[in-house]
């Protein structure tokens, strides 16, 4: 008898090398049962490599990874029926319809009582159930992929960049499906490079950069511990205002021609800055004060501008 493990996923000192490239560098983390865990990182940070090792389709160079208490390098046969996977850039057979595709995967898992209608409903594909895969839009394809990842009623669901390449509307529709999944209490391992997505869906976020986990916690914790400041934006200011703020010891950053951004520690500082500008006779049209979001935390932690970089330098 094996005792039921407390964690759905345990990763200990995991390292993966491709020749000279160190894709994953000695990372350790765990995922609790029933939580949505997001792996947040830029392209090439090592997200997919890590997730594919946990899914048993890549082998680690070193370290120990267990899924539902089983070693992923030894128990593939036992693990596979208990997980569901939406791979990156999910694709399927062109000429097979939505319903047929779900049926096919359900047969591969040997599930007699897959609730195919329920899955179609969950993924909001009812009107498209007779459509062939090649005729689906990107968002519909991803939603079908999510439905397929659930055919075997898995205990852990892996979603590798479920909304990459989708337009904002399609992205929101996928999020709706994922929120439905979260309500069902499934353990979800999500990789993404969209901060908004992690902030909206995840209970725990791990920020990965260059193969290393550089921060981990709930989105609120991450913001709290890494960005205990307020982001003040002064709109339509003149050059003089910028100098004034600088003299006061802050570090204003030009946002565009007329706006400047200032990080301030306390709400009092906002008042002080406004007064100083007023006294000097400089002008400010409007201002905006808000708490930082995950994006700012991410940028601060990874230290480089977060943008779409080259795709992962990992052999397929």
């Amino acid at each position, binding site marked *: 008898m094996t005792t039921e493990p407390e964690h759905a996923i345990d990763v200990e000192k995991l390292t993966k090398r491709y020749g000279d490239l160190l894709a994953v560098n000695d990372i350790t983390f765990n995922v609790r049962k029933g939580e949505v865990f997001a792996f947040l990182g830029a392209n090439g940070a090592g997200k997919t490599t890590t997730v*594919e090792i946990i*899914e*048993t*389709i*890549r*082998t680690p160079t070193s370290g120990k990874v267990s899924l539902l208490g089983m070693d992923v390098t030894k128990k593939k*046969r036992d693990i*596979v*029926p208990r*997980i569901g*996977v939406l*791979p*990156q*850039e*999910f*694709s*399927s*057979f*062109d*000429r*097979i319809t939505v319903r*047929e595709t779900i049926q*096919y*995967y359900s*047969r*591969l*898992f*040997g599930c007699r009582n897959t609730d195919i209608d329920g899955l179609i409903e969950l993924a909001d594909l009812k009107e498209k159930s007779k459509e*062939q895969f090649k005729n689906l839009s990107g968002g519909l394809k991803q939603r079908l*992929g999510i439905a*397929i990842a659930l055919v075997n009623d898995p205990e852990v669901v892996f979603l590798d960049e479920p909304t990459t390449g989708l337009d904002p509307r399609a992205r929101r529709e996928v999020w709706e499906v994922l929120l439905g999944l979260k309500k069902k209490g499934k353990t979800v391992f999500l990789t993404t490079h969209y901060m908004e997505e992690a902030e909206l869906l995840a209970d725990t976020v791990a920020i990965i950069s260059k193969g290393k986990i550089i921060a981990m916690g709930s989105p609120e914790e991450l913001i709290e511990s890494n960005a205990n400041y307020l982001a003040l934006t002064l709109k339509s200011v003149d050059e003089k205002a910028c100098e004034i703020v600088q003299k006061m010891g802050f570090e204003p950053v030009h946002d565009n021609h007329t706006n400047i951004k200032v990080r301030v520690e306390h709400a009092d500082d906002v008042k002080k800055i406004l007064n100083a500008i007023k006294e000097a006779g400089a002008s400010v049209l409007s201002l905006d004060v808000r708490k930082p979001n995950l994006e700012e935390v991410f940028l601060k932690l990874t230290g480089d501008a977060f943008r779409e970089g080259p795709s992962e330098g990992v*052999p*397929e």
Partner: protein
Amino acid sequence: MSPRVIGANLVVSIKSFYREKSAMFFTIAFPIILILVFGTIFMNQDNGSFDLYVQDLDQTNSSAQLVKTLQLNGRFKITKVDPAINATQYAKDNKLNLVLVIPGGYERSLVQRMAFRDPNASVAVTYIYDSSSSSTSTKMQILQSVFGVVNQGMSGQPPFIRSAETSILTKKYRFIEFFVPGIIAMSVMTSSLSGAVNVNAELRQKGVIRKLSTTPITRTDWILSNILYQFILAVISTIAILLVSYAVFHVSLQINAWLLWFIVLEVFAFAGLGMILTRVAKEAESAAAAANAIMFPMMFLSGSFFPLEMMPGFLQTFARILPLYYVNEGLRASMVVVDNITALRYSAIIGVFATVVFVLGILTTKWEEGK
């Protein structure tokens, strides 16, 4: 091995095939078109019935007798030309490649020779012909041989050299019967080779294989499903080819277990080759190009379309290292000549090739994402 998984894969493959009209065309219609085109061309040669225009200027019983002799030879469909018109002009106007003219005085000369033993009595028939036409010389040769027999008979001596025919075939076969097994072998090769390449390269490139590797399907199940599907396609296209051959050309072929056995071996051999190609060529397009580079020379050099004797010696030797050659010859041995020993020998050769290639194919097909 899981019959449930293999069944699920077959359903998907067959539905995709049915919905992909161009795949249907290349698997079924293409070999049928080849059979129809080549069959029609060769049919005319086989029947050997040539048109012959004859102008009889003598208009006697004897000259009519000569025309009848030509007719009885069986190789000619004779059309008579009015003696009143200019035969050369007539040939030109009607684009005829040969008009035989029997001169006036034919009967008189014949009587002179037969009754009066006059050695100087003879007739000269005229060939009005077009030397650019390919069948002219064949027709003239046949005419010469008919006249030779007539001349020899008039000499009163029995012929010295006689000929006796012994065909090595138990029955008289036509070119179409040689051709049909070649087309079957060719279409099974193209569908298994390009099928294996498409399935493996395209689905891998699209990432479908990556998704499949996270399901309980094993590499063995996947490969077996594909082989079984290729086999079903091969049987479908073979049936289509045979139906057309029987219906249109009334071929006479032996359909026996050898046919099925050769198809099985060929599917394994070329699907295995396809799997290796997919591994060697990383992109789907280059794998398909490599498959074509193998298929086209093989089609023409291994005797699918024409007998190897028509090729220069070094190419004939080269043909013997091509696997398709052994399928062609094995199928002909079993379907045309019904030579079980030869069929067995060729099936052994292709069987060894299929085993080696297929095992290599399995070993090189990557399933997991990698080490």
